[in-house]
């Protein structure tokens, strides 16, 4: 195998692009964010001193091992959970509670089952006082954007998982939020649908004035989608590294095997699944090795499958 370039090496075009992104105004800023909560084992620190900025039309992915608090982070940004210290600034103004300026797409099916697809998308405009007609116009427009015009009058249960998430995206976008928060939105989809949805999301992002913060645990997904990847570590949740993805845009599925892609993935692997170097096993790893050691053999000794 050829030696991979460093994930820090950027081609001229990529470097220029990041320079342009840094010129843009900051949409979301997180400053010294802490989250502590009381649990049965005493006080737990879910997030410690999180700092980052997201600029206009930037696509940022947050990745980390389970229990690193990435869901907690996005829920704090959405205003669904409180934080213990620090600031969340949207357009330099602190946010408190949920609001239309931050759209959210959940992992689970969050569509209102009693409303048709169109009425689901109309929910936001209607709640904020649009007339029925203009809400319907908006809904039709955004259903068109996600390619579901034909299903306007279907109920969510009649749609496939991927289509439901497209409706959820349209429902969030119709409010024209400053930033779109996505909490593992494709986590429950099968691999094929997920790949389609990723391409579709990039297509939407390319054509709209929208900034996206995207939570995932899938390394390929993060590299494929993101400009920058925010890597969290667990216990407590802290920013480990912010990686500028060196894979050039436009992104295509063929890039999964490109040297930049593989170099970035290697780095992410190393950050998220560190090799057992100094005998200081994390509790999760210790559990894994205990599992392997205690495997009992239930078959005949001579009956080998490998």
């Amino acid at each position, binding site marked *: 195998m050829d030696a991979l370039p460093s994930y820090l090496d950027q081609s001229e075009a990529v470097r220029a692009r990041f320079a342009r992104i840094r010129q843009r105004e900051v949409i979301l800023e997180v400053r010294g964010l802490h989250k502590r909560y009381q649990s049965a084992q005493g006080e737990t620190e879910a997030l410690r001193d999180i700092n980052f900025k997201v600029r206009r039309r930037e696509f940022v992915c947050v990745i980390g091992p389970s229990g690193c608090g990435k869901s907690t982070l996005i829920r704090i940004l959405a205003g669904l959970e409180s934080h213990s210290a620090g600031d969340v600034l949207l357009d330099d103004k602190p946010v408190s509670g*949920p609001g239309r300026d931050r759209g*959210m797409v*959940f992992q689970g099916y*969050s569509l*209102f089952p*009693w409303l048709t697809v169109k009425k689901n998308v109309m*929910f936001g405009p209607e709640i*904020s006082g649009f007339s029925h007609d203009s809400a319907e116009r908006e809904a039709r427009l955004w259903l068109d954007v996600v390619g579901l015009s034909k299903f306007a009058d279907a109920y969510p249960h009649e749609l496939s998982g991927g289509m439901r998430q497209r409706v959820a995206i349209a429902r969030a976008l119709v409010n024209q939020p400053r930033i779109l928060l996505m909490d593992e939105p494709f986590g429950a989809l099968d691999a094929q649908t997920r790949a389609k949805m990723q391409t579709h999301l990039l297509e939407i992002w390319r054509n709209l004035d929208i900034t996206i913060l995207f939570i995932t645990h899938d390394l390929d997904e993060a590299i494929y989608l993101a400009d920058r990847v925010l890597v969290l570590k667990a216990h407590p949740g802290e920013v480990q590294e912010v990686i500028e993805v060196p894979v050039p845009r436009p992104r295509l599925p063929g890039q999964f095997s490109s040297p930049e892609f593989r170099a970035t993935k290697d780095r992410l692997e190393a950050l998220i699944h560190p090799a057992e170097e100094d005998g200081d096993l994390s509790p999760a790893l210790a559990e894994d090795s205990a599992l392997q050691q205690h495997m009992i053999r239930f078959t005949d000794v001579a009956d080998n499958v490998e």
Partner: protein
Amino acid sequence: MSLGFPAAIAHLPESRQRALLAVGSFLLPILVWCMISYLPFLWHPKVMVEEPGGVGYFQAGMLIDHADFAEQARQMREQGLALPSGIPANPIYLPAPHLVAKAFYTGFTTPPQGRDGVWLHESLWHSIQIIFWGFVISSLFGVPLGILGGTYTVLGRLQEPFIEFFRYLPAPAFGALAVAVLGIYDGPKIAIIVIGTFFQQVLVIANTTRKLEITLIEAARTLGTRGARLITKVVLPGILPDLYRDQRILLGWAWTYLIVAELIGTSSGITWYITQQARYQHFENVYAAIIIIGIIGFGSDLLLARLGRRLFPWDRTQERK
């Protein structure tokens, strides 16, 4: 877990199988009843006198225990008097199906006895009104309290301990109190239905409300919904199919309090009819009246279930039933 159908009906489409089994579930108890009624060797612990013979106190149509009848027959034989004759019969409290079937018809065609008597259908209508008002009044308070208690933790924790306590108090125990407060006519009867339904209602509906997917509420909040509109736009429509199902079950609950409620104060409605008929030992009429209550309750529930499928086309849980 449920297993499939037996081979005999396995080849039929599922809707047919279900219909057949539903009919069967009614035919089976009726069949048992017919066998006990029409097969003399099955039970028939009595003898119905046909000819009194020499026995002084026997009359045609009288029901006598087997042993007594045999004893009397032995005495007559010893005294050389005419022997009584009779046929095996069931006790008077178990009329045969055909008598009850006839009572269905005659119950509605027989004019009321006495000065202030009422027709059977008038009794029934009165009972239905008692149920209706009891259930409406209970729902008027129980449904909102249940939804609010299920939505707001503080309110739920404030109201539920007391309601949990109160629901163990038997509703009929409040009968005398209800009469003292509300008089002897319909007031206390409705009150008993309300007491019997309300407390269960608040708890059941609060529970249903709590089962609503929290993501739906969070999604609505990120779309800009807040305050009371979360309840009217999300919680209420979200739980509506389950709320409707709860209400159907609770309505059945209200029906079971009917008889006790109607015995309070002046007896009225179908209960008055039943007690009158039982007093005159017209047990076929008693059975007919009890079965009518069942038919009204079960029939209205079937109608409401069908209506529910129309009202909530998005409700997936109904398709599996």
